[in-house]
């Protein structure tokens, strides 16, 4: 028998611990946002998305994507919406926002966390509407409600990006992956 179990490196364990801490924070914010009074259909301030953005700059694209999925699955479990239409809508919004933020962070020169967050917030709202229209309501008149909600997403996206910039500038994080 020559089973050699390789111990993970300390930095690897550290990265996983940070990812888990961010996931727990994102789940907490997901549950908190679900308890807030609604400003409109499917509209939330996007605080949980802010944690995805922090995971992207600190731990890299893969960690950000996994965090977006994990946050929606575990968060939905806690608020009792797992595998309901709300879960599908949240998952679509969270995933598309994460993918758009990763693409923007990697490919748009001169963009800061504010611009990345802005694009993520807009992508989140658009993905939710497309999901609701194509899978559930199946009525394109639904898009009539989109412009004012996109305006709110623009404002919250900008503010969340500024908040993420403030946090990132003040928290030391080892092995940042840009």
């Amino acid at each position: 028998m020559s089973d050699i179990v390789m111990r993970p490196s300390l930095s690897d364990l550290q990265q996983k611990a940070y990812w888990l801490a961010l996931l727990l924070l994102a789940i907490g914010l997901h549950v908190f946002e679900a308890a807030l009074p609604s400003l409109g259909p499917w509209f939330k301030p996007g605080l949980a998305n802010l944690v995805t953005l922090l995971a992207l700059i600190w731990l890299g694209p893969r960690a950000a994507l996994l965090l977006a999925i994990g946050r929606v699955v575990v968060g939905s479990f806690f608020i009792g919406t797992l595998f309901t239409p709300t879960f599908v809508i949240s998952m679509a919004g969270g995933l598309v926002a994460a993918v758009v933020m990763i693409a923007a962070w990697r490919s748009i020169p001169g963009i800061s966390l504010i611009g990345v967050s802005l694009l993520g917030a807009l992508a989140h709202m658009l993905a939710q509407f497309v999901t609701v229209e194509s899978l559930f309501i199946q009525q394109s008149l639904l898009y009539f409600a989109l412009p004012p909600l996109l305006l709110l997403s623009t404002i919250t996206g900008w503010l969340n990006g500024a908040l993420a910039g403030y946090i990132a500038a003040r928290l030391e994080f080892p092995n940042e992956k840009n």
Partner: protein
Amino acid sequence: MPELLKGTLTDRILLLISLLAIAVSWFVVQSVVASGPAVAEVYHGKVLLATYPLPLAGEPAKSFMIEGELGTSEILLDEHGVRMLSSPCSAQRCVYSGAHRHAGDIIACVPNRILITIRGSAESRFDAIVE
């Protein structure tokens, strides 16, 4: 704090493009929905179930039932607009969203696949159109 909110030049260009796109789409939506008499259109999926005029101040309120995917939803039309009185869905977001009267407003019950849209702003002169 203001420095924190400024963003880079790229961020501001993205913001400008986003705001322009939103303004144009808002204008297009309003030009489509704001003309004609103020009515509430009720859909189940792609099917238009009924079109009801919105009552003016002093006119009696009307309520009616519609069948959706999960069961029966009750809709109330009064001088404040249209609202969902009850719904078989668990989240009840459609009920809590309250009354809507402005052209372009919607009430959507995703689990029951019911959509109510408001069109028009002028006084209407019919009782109801049921499909």
